[in-house]
């Protein structure tokens, strides 16, 4: 199992946002983390990447924990954040080089991969620009290039579609598909549900910091007793039920 989260309780301050969240992602699998604003998607991801300390519960990546093997654990992860985060002082080329240095990648091999990615996203002629001055969509593409260039076994992608043009969304989905084929586990949070429905293998539905439902689309349909409905309708149904309670 690539990623294993067991009974995770956590949050930013003393008050837990997540209440016993459990989920897992297998190698070569794309799992969609679905939820409304404030449901706990990003909080869950922040715990997995090690930015937040769990109050209780356990997170394992390929059997490793952050506490026991911090560096090995971090090597397993590549992360695309919700809003692009860049260094003001580094050019696009230097962002890529820094990532290679940080993950200890072989420069020749990594550049080969990076060049392909840059071409895909039409950034290959902007290597000496400062991405801090790029548009939101282009910044997001830089984040994607940095993350997809690594050999990480687990890819964490937080709301990747926002700000990307339709062509880039399509390219990103292709890249994720390639990563899956290479045996990488992908956890992606989103509320673009129709895209999620088409591409994700399984779903974890979060509401109020708890896993409301999980499984494949068919399993979700069965659980919700809505056999022909789309993910969108199932999720809206569940969310409304929660509000009524």
């Amino acid at each position, binding site marked *: 199992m690539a990623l294993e989260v067991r009974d995770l309780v956590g949050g930013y301050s003393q008050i837990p946002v997540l209440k016993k969240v459990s989920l897992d992602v297998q190698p070569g699998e794309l799992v969609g983390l679905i939820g409304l604003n404030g449901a706990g998607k990003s909080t869950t991801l922040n715990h997995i990447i090690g930015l937040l300390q769990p109050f209780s519960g356990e997170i394992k990546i390929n059997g490793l924990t952050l506490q026991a093997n911090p560096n090995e654990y971090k*090597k397993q992860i590549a992360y695309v954040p919700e809003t692009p985060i860049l*260094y003001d*002082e580094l050019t696009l080329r230097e962002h890529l080089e820094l990532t290679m240095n940080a993950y*200890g990648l072989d*420069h020749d091999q990594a550049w080969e991969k990076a060049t392909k990615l840059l071409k895909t996203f039409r950034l290959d002629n902007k290597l000496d620009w400062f991405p801090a001055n790029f548009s939101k969509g282009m910044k997001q593409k830089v984040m994607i290039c940095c993350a997809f260039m690594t050999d990480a076994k687990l890819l964490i992608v937080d709301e990747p579609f926002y700000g990307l043009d339709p062509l880039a969304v399509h390219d990103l989905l292709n890249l994720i598909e390639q990563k899956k084929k290479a045996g990488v586990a992908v956890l992606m949070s989103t509320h673009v549900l129709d895209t999620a429905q088409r591409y994700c293998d399984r779903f974890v539905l979060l509401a109020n910091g708890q896993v409301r439902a999980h499984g494949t689309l068919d399993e979700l349909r069965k659980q919700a007793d809505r056999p022909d409905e789309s993910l969108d309708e199932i999720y809206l149904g569940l969310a409304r039920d929660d509000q009524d309670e």
Partner: protein
Amino acid sequence: MIKMNKLFSTRRQRHFMMLLKYWRLVFNDHFVIALFFLFGALAYGYSQWLPSLGPGLWWSRWLLVLWFVFVAQVGRLATLLKRPDPVFLLPQVDAMENYLKQAYRYSLLLAEIITVAGAFVALPFALTTEKLSTAEIVAVFLMAMVTKDDWLFTARKSISMRWAKQTRRTRLEYWVNPLLAALATWLVNPFVGLAVAVILDIAMRLVYRGLMVDWTAAVKMEDDRMYSVYRFFNLFTDVPSVQGNVKRRRWASGLIKYLSNGTRPWAYLYARGFIRNTDVSGIVIRLTLVGMVLALLVPVQWLNTVLVLLFIYLIATQLMPLYDQYDGNVFTHLYPVDHEERVHDFQRLLTRVTLVEALLIVIASLGLDADWHRLLINFIVAAVEVAFLTRFYFKVRMKKLSEEY
């Protein structure tokens, strides 16, 4: 709910609390001791300089004119407006008028205190080089105060719909009005100077009417003012909103190479951050230049050595905040790199930069009289200090920083 007529006083209170928080940090810092020393040295120099002056120097009046024109520039219009105000307060046209009046009074009070202090500093010099009666001294003070009011009014009208576009004219008035009053004061006599200042002040108010606020200009002015306030505090402590600009500086790629360390990610990042961020490298360069000039010009052995030590210390302390400059960036937490490697890489950069700056200052301390003896003493003392700062003091600082979180 905050009533509109209370808005300014609530904001002023909050502003005070914010300033208080930063001042507390300023006085906790060793840096401030160094500054006190510098001020002490300046005051000492001033008192030593006065007796050597006789009456009838051709430049003394021009120096006074210059001083009073500069003093008039200190103390800005603090409106305490915030970025969201144009959206949230858009319908409050009348209330804004009142708000800005309160802001004006508050700014005037602070600015006049500074003006009086500035005039006091010039007083011993003026009394040494000029014969002034008590009435004339009073007239000088009043002239400075009226000129400051004129200056602030210029700032006020520059953020109004009708006059905001005339930025060049405003800039000219900032300098020319005080210049006219100061020229009349020192070249004719203080009473004429006072009269000129009063006439200018009244004329400005007669010419510029219709001061409905221009939101874009007003918010920008306040943003700029707050930025310079934060920049000042940033000398002592970390202010999150001060980041500085970035310049590519291709010519410095050799330096970047000297400061990097193979493929180590933190050294890679720190080297580029230091060279390209104008905030960090700017202050280090300025301090080095000032230190070099002082080391070159001060012939007194002990004072020279103390100044060399002081400036090396200042440079090292101004570099330290670079250590956690990137903590706001998630990726620095995700890199699979040991904490020790980061500390080591920063220490390396700190040592290399401080060493180069220290060498430059020590070489400058050879002085105009080419005193090799002084150079040698400074060299030895500086070497010991650099070792102390980059090994021991750095560790203490890091410990203090990590305890703050």
